[in-house]
């Protein structure tokens, strides 16, 4: 299953190769041109009969994770974050490190030895370490190098009411939808872009958009879902199972109102459930895409993901399917000239 393979592949920001290879193998027989740009983005072009508007669809390949910063005399590894990670989720997680795919676990002082005050607060990541089961620095250095990445080990599991648990649903859901879209025939030509290093500051999207100069940019994302006790209604960004989320505004973009309306109209006309993303925290590749060169208009369609940026993010397969369907119908509408905009 594609989403299983995508989420189980490793691709922390700056080290997306495993994911990139997987995606290229998936799409190479379905697109007319494919290349990797200098910064590492996959730029795929699928030629249709119609070239206007110039459509770029982007999903980021990278995921958040850890990087090894020091090997202790004891053979334990110290690490830092790559991208936004809640340090409370780290203790007792399994990780896979570096080129040699070394297994490790994130350890800390056992509860018996902790002071009462230490029970009450989450351990700072500086107090944590990765244990790769060796007894000294020399042995550790044979397996792991400083600067190598450690990604969470977390299997793709389907459970409950048509839900999925996996790591890096942000943004392998976007990659999966984009792959399937490129495998489908469309009348409109599509630039499918799989970007690098989104999680550390939207790094790959800018150069890609600079090169492509799209009229319209659609960003596919996994987004925050906080439909849980403890978050007041108006602060719940999205709700699981209520359909794909369409963004209004975030830290990096005020999304184009005409484009949002066109996507909403498409959803309404085809009875696809959707929701508006009700918070404006965070940002995504659109921030760089809509400001490249003379600018473009952009929208974001997201699959809501609970426990995002953790090894156990959760999504609804229904939301996923509806996001893919909505994108397809939106492209259909574009190629029929159903979205008029003066470019």
């Amino acid at each position, binding site marked *: 299953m594609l989403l299983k393979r995508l989420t189980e592949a490793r691709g922390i920001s700056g080290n997306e190769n495993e994911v990139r290879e997987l995606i290229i193998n998936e799409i190479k027989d379905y697109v007319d041109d494919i290349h990797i740009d200098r910064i590492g983005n996959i730029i795929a072009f699928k030629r249709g009969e119609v070239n206007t508007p110039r459509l770029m669809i982007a999903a980021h390949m990278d995921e958040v994770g850890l990087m090894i910063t020091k090997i202790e005399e004891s053979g334990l590894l110290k690490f830092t974050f790559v991208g936004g990670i809640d340090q409370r989720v780290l203790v007792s997680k399994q990780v896979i490190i570096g080129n040699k795919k070394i297994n490790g676990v994130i350890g800390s002082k056992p509860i018996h030895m902790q002071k009462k005050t230490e029970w009450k607060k989450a351990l700072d990541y500086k107090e944590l370490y990765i244990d790769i089961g060796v007894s000294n620095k020399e042995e550790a250095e044979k397996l792991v190098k400083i600067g190598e990445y450690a990604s969470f080990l977390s299997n793709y599991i389907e459970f409950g009411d048509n839900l999925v648990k996996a790591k890096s649903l942000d943004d392998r859901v976007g990659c999966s939808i984009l792959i399937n879209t490129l495998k489908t025939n469309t009348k409109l030509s599509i630039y499918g872009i799989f970007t690098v290093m989104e999680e550390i500051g939207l790094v790959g999207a800018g150069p890609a958009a600079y090169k492509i100069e799209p*009229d319209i940019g659609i960003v596919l994302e996994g987004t925050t879902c906080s439909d849980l006790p403890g978050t007041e*209604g*108006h*602060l719940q960004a999205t709700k699981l199972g209520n359909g794909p989320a369409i963004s*209004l*505004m975030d830290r*990096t973009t*005020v*999304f184009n*109102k005409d484009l*949002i309306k066109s996507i909403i109209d498409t959803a309404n006309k085809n009875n696809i459930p959707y929701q*508006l993303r*009700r*918070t*404006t925290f965070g940002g995504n590749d659109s921030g760089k895409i*809509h*400001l490249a*060169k*003379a*600018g*473009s*208009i952009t929208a974001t369609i997201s699959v809501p993901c609970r426990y995002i940026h953790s090894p156990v993010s959760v999504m609804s397969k229904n939301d996923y399917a509806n996001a893919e369907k909505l994108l397809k119908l939106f492209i259909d509408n574009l190629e029929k000239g159903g979205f008029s905009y003066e*470019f």
Partner: protein
Amino acid sequence: MNFNGELLKKLVNTYGPSGDESQIAEVVKNEIKDYLDEIKIDRLGNLIARKKGNGNKIMLAAHMDQIGLLVTDIDEKGFLRFTNIGGISPYVSIGQRVIFKNGIIGVIYMEPMEDMGKLKLENMYIDIGASSKEDAEKRVSIGDSCVYTAQYYENQNNVISGCIDDRIGCYILIEAIKELKESNNDIYFVFTSQEEVGLRGAKTSAYSIDPDFGIAIDITGSGDTPKAKRFAVGLDKGAAIKVKDQSIIVNPLVKDFMIRAAKENNILYQLEVLEHGGTDSGAIHLTKEGIPSGVISVPTRYVHTPSETIAKNDVNNCISLLLSLINMKIEF
């Protein structure tokens, strides 16, 4: 130079939060369309007007957008929750009236707070007098934006109004367009979008215009009120020529060029060193290979409130300075 209060009043009372500038763009367009050679609105919503010439290509930028609020949720009782578009203070917002694009008026208030120091926008709501969610949804939708609304007032010397930031810049550009006789230079008047959320319209319009010289016209703060933080800019002390802010250090050649224009034409000016904030020149001067850029600022009290206060003389000095500058031969 007469002060055209009718025009400024029309500009500040027109709706235009960042990302939704179509109404203000229309108003500006109607004011200037008879005076210029080309006029268009680009993808980011910038209104770009051109007066053709054979000399240097100059970009003049004033932002059309204003700070505002974006509705993110409507509760069962019909109260609206919101987030900020640009620099909205929760404290300034208490009790303010807002207006939506369709003319609906609401009032901003807050949940009871034990500690006012902890007030955040997420503890606040907008009341549009709706009796239920359904009733509210007939008038307002999630994703709609609104802006502060307040009465425009002017006396002999001052204007007090909301949205002086940066409709006064738009006013200065419009009045300059009307005053402008012939110019050798090729002048682009750009009424930019989305300045308040990160100088976004200026970035893309500067790329497409690729000027030799850029000038932004915007408001700045003032340091002449009781116990104000040290800031050597005050009302009635002239057009402010920017030295630096958080988005730009003005090239000394540009700064000196602007000072020379003021001195040669006997225009009252002051120098502005702003420790916080930035404006469109921050984006313009980093475009492509870099574009020499400066800023003319209007000293303003109570920035980002519905009672922004300016001096009319300063505004007229800004127009005079701008007119002198755009007729000069650019020497850098």
